[in-house]
């Protein structure tokens, strides 16, 4: 049997990748993808804890994973729509060029 730690470590790795991508990539779409990675890492943890936890009849882990997926779908839809809208008006998707809020 694969130990729980293996899943958690994998999730931590994916999460770190996502963290790096979300903070370092200039392209907004890339950042969004990185965020997806982070969400997936979390999901792995949720499911792993469900599988290895003491009470597997309690399906909270899976339920939450599904909620996360649904929220991710909503987030991507709105996020991408925003990016497209910004691209249309400003001709850029680079996050460090999108600084209308700069004082």
């Amino acid at each position, binding site marked *: 049997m694969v130990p729980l730690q293996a899943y958690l470590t994998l999730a*931590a790795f994916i999460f770190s990748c996502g963290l790096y991508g979300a903070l370092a*990539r200039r392209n907004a779409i890339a950042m969004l993808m990185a965020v997806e990675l982070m969400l997936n890492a979390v999901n792995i943890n949720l499911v792993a804890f469900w599988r*290895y936890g003491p009470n597997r009849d309690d399906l909270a882990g899976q339920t939450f994973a599904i909620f996360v997926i649904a929220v991710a779908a909503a987030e991507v839809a709105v996020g991408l*729509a925003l990016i497209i809208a910004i691209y249309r008006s400003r001709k850029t998707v680079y996050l460090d060029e999108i600084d209308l809020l700069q004082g």
Partner: protein
Amino acid sequence: MPELPVEIPIPTPHQAVFIMVAVATGVASLLVVTNRNLFYSALCLVGALFGVAGVYVLLEAEFLAITQVLVYVGAIATLITFAIMLTRGIMFGVTSPNNRYMFAVMSMALLVFLLVAGVVDRVPWAVAEDLTLSGDGKSMIVDLGWEFVTTYALPLELIGLLLLIALVGAVMLARDDE
């Protein structure tokens, strides 16, 4: 057979499959954030998401795995690819794909990984003794369904509402005003 100083365990088929899936997923997700070509990033993301679905299968959450494929690969990845194609005009450029915090962030991410991995390794997780699942997969799906319409009925409705609002909002945002 001479005693080795460190015992290298022979992986079971299950573990072998996990190692393959995990390595593939990890590499794919690393590629997602490092690839210069955004389109390849998206392809790698698809790969990584498939990998995660595989992880779910290994965790015997088939329904979740299929949902993962359905939603992530079928919808989210497609959307992202679409967005990449729509903004392709500025995808290839001489400028760096990463911003000026790149190295700081890289070290930070590394730190986070090491920290979490260390903690994960050290914490004595309260893992159940018997890891076999009771009942077959179908009963689990039925249970999941019940959970959704009983315990999590309100969150489910809210999620539905959220999706609807997100869809409408996305359409409104992305619509060409002409």
